């Protein structure tokens, strides 16, 4: 498994898209930081960062796409299978590599933003800084499993569907429109539709981000981990099940 992950990281290191995506996201983070530099102190900037957590869902999805895109189109999977690499190792190895890349990208963007803010803004009140950084740490920790869920769902869709366009559209729908569309059903004046819609909305990957506006409790943290890991486990199980039976050409 270690060799498999190392090979995936070697391949990603030679993929222009990794540098392009990282560069664009870092540039956006730095541009966003410089926009607020004038009137803002460092704690203000850190607080600002706390509200950008949903972006992590897309970063995770994009990093997974970098790893898995072309697996069906290039036909390279047959090289791995014919050498006797188990399908589960291929699926999980690529998932782990995408996860590691996402963590690296996340550290780069968060670090870049905070580093630049630290350099360009006034330090602010130490107590305020401590509280804001604690909040930032909390939201990152609470968002992490949701990012992981987004990553594994993207992974499952790209493995299960032969059409990458279809997989990309479904991923985008799930991360962008899934929750608002479900929210519409919760407003229907019929409990037979609204009640299940509410239940579905509760476990969607994007819903927990709304709750950061309220009280940040350990219960919320636990809920997020349950939702994120639930998506990870279910989508990985489905993805593996489909991939084990797939015809590889």
């Amino acid at each position: 498994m270690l060799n498999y992950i190392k090979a995936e990281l070697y391949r990603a290191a030679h993929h222009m898209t990794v540098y392009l995506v990282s560069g664009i996201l870092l540039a956006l983070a730095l541009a966003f930081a410089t926009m607020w530099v004038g009137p803002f102190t460092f704690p203000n900037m850190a607080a600002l960062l706390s509200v950008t957590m949903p972006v992590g869902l897309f970063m995770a999805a994009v990093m997974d796409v970098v790893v898995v895109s072309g697996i069906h189109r290039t036909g390279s999977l047959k090289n791995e299978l014919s050498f006797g690499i188990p399908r589960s190792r291929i699926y999980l190895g690529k998932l782990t590599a995408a996860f590691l890349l996402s963590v690296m990208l996340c550290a780069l963007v968060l670090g870049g933003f905070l580093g630049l803010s630290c350099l360009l803004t006034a330090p602010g009140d130490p107590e305020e800084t401590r509280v804001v950084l604690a909040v930032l740490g909390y939201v990152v920790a609470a968002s992490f499993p949701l990012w992981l869920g987004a990553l594994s769902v993207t992974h499952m869709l790209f493995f299960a569907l032969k059409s990458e366009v279809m997989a990309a559209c479904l991923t985008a729908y799930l991360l962008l429109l899934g929750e608002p569309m479900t929210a519409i059903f919760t407003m229907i004046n019929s409990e037979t539709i609204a009640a299940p819609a509410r239940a579905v909305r509760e476990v969607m990957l994007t819903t927990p981000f709304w709750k950061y506006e309220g009280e940040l409790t350990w219960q919320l943290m636990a809920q997020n981990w349950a939702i994120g890991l639930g998506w990870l486990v279910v989508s990985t199980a489905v993805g593996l099940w489909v991939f084990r039976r797939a015809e590889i050409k």
Partner: protein
Amino acid sequence: MAESVLVTRNLTKKYGPATVVNNVNLNIEKGQIYGLVGRNGAGKTTIIRMVTAQTVPTEGELSLFGATEPGALGKMRARTGAMVEIPSFYPYLTAKENLEYYRIQRGIPGKGCVDEVLRLVDLKKAGGKKFKTFSLGMKQRLGLALALMDRPDFLLLDEPINGLDPEGIVELRNLLLDLNRERETTILISSHILSELENLATHYGFIDNGRMLEQISAKALKEKCRACLELAVDSAPAAARALEQGLGVRDYEVLPDNIIRLYCHLDEPARVTQLLVENGVALRSIEQKGANLEDYFLSLIGGVRHD
């Protein structure tokens, strides 16, 4: 007894109602160069795809180096090298990077093997070029390089000659013969270019419509395809006597239905006819026979189809 490398028992693959491979029993032993002969769509590639785990058999079982269980089969596949259909690599990586990726993935120690196989397939100079710029022939060579990277004991090649220029075909043939001779690499090679297989194979499997029609050694096939005069007579024993006494021949064969195959005096059909008539043997027909691999295959499948 030689070690069995690949054995299949009633191997079957169905796609919906269509049976693409139908109860195929294969037996490839160590050191053989096994030519899988069949038309397009006969089931050759599907058999190789089942052996290389790209598709799961519907029925039957296969054994690789004696292993039949899925886990053990996976381990044995590590002893194989395969090139199935058009070689597939990452287009944005160079030839060398692609091979390096698979080297790391397979845990093959030492970077030297990448250069070695690139040299072996004459791609050393093109190692720094991106795969997307490769011609079909170069892709075939790179596919072969990957198949050879971990010095496999068993090489599975599906139509490896496709896209190669004449020089490349000769080089490939020599390379495969060297591997077979020097490393005792067992090779399964499928091709529809039968003249090329004739120069390589030690054994043949003829497949049509998913069914294995015949498995035969090259030696036995050569014997069957030997040039001869085929005589249809009213009495084979009388004709045999006449041939032995009149021409002193020993190199002949008596087949059912009073057919005699004479492997000498091929350019003297008139003399043979006269001798038989003089000895009171009625000759129904006399025909010069002899076949190459292509003729033999066509006779097996019942001639060229025009559908």
